[in-house]
């Protein structure tokens, strides 16, 4: 049985932890709001990019399509870009993404494909390193980045496209977590190379015959790398919002758990204190009776 002093220390330490988790929850809530705003602000660009891409892809016939869109015609080597958070303490957020990626890696390896992994974010790297450390070709560190800008996404896209041009892989899949609500983030796999062009968008956009300046293939060749940057950018923003949502939920339950623990410890503490007082009283009384 712990002594009263030990119990007191224990309660004090749980209270201190509760304060920290409470503060983290509030910080996450504030950051979540900002991350959500950023994700929303980025949406118009991505949507219009989709429309423009669908329009122009309809104009360029299959044989003229640049390799980034048409693919290499093989699917032997896969590149997995796994985007996770930089920090932990956000429930199952990172491990869910990593799990999804790991399942994908297993399936590909079983089918005899070559797999390469590019980790964005420290946590995914830490998790994947254990099982598939030899597959990881590089990692992108965004720890120093306070607010994710398009530049960061562009940098990653450039690296991916550089690898593609060197013939390092045939198919590139992006893993991230789609933000649905504060409570739920869905790990998602999205194929970015070869680019999947929304086929239905071509008809609705406009039937007008476009004039292209310069010509359509060269615009397309310029547009597709940019579209990859946009996809990565969107994934990073969704991740940022999802991380904060998950952290908020995790910290909320941590705060609640700490509260329960304090209650339990307080009851034990009070019971013991009373027991001790009673014991002292009995000692005094029986001492007096003996006289």
């Amino acid at each position, binding site marked *: 049985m712990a002594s009263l002093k030990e119990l007191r220390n224990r309660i004090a330490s749980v209270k201190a932890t509760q304060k920290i988790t409470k503060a983290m929850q509030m910080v996450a809530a504030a950051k979540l709001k900002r991350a959500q705003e*950023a994700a929303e*602000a*980025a949406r*118009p*660009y*991505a949507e*219009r*990019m989709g*429309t*423009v891409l669908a*329009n*122009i892809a309809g104009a360029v016939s299959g044989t003229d399509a640049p390799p980034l869109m048409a693919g290499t015609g093989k699917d032997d080597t896969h590149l997995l870009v796994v985007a996770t958070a930089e920090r932990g303490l956000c429930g199952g957020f990172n491990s869910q993404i990593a799990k999804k990626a790991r399942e994908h890696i297993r399936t590909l390896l079983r089918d005899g494909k070559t797999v390469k992994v590019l980790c964005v974010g420290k946590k995914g790297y830490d998790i994947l390193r254990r099982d598939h450390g030899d597959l990881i070709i590089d990692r992108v560190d965004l720890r120093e980045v306070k607010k994710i*800008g*398009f530049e960061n*996404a562009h940098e990653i896209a450039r690296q991916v496209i550089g690898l593609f041009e060197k013939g390092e892989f045939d198919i590139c899949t992006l893993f991230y977590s789609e933000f649905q609500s504060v409570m739920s983030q869905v790990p998602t796999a999205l194929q970015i190379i070869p680019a999947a062009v929304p086929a239905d968008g071509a008809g609705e956009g*406009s039937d*007008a*015959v*476009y*004039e*292209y*300046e*310069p010509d*359509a293939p*060269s*615009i397309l060749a*310029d*547009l597709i790398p*940019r579209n990859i*940057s*946009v996809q990565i*950018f969107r994934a990073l923003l969704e991740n940022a919002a999802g991380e904060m949502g998950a952290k908020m939920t995790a910290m909320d339950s941590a705060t609640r758990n700490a509260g329960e623990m304090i209650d339990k410890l307080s009851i034990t503490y009070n019971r013991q204190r009373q027991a001790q007082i009673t014991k002292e009283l009995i000692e005094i009384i029986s001492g007096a009776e003996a006289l």
Partner: protein
Amino acid sequence: MAEAFKFDLVSPERLLVSQDVESVVIPGTEGELTVMATHAPTMTSIKPGVVTVSADGKTERYVVFGGFADILPDSCTVLAESAVHVDDINREDLARRIQDAREDIEDARDHETRMRAEEFLHQLTTLEGAILPA
């Protein structure tokens, strides 16, 4: 008064302008073009430069660094890689971009990349000249 049409200027980070305007000057790669209502459908890529938006007798200028314009008879969308209002332009940022472009030229291995990098640098310096005195 010219007929109005819908104009959107979006960068990956946010939507800068979405309003009805009378005319827009866009720095296309093949030369500047002024877009007014009922323009022929055109798709053009953009070089670094200034987008001038005229609406209600007022003109606003935005600096863009590359991107695309999607022009339709009743609307015009500029997808800029990065766009800022000309008053908010950060000179250090511009200087940094020019520096980067210079380094790109030095790093260029084949003739074609070098040509492209040099052109880009030229566009940037022209842009710097156009906005700095303002």
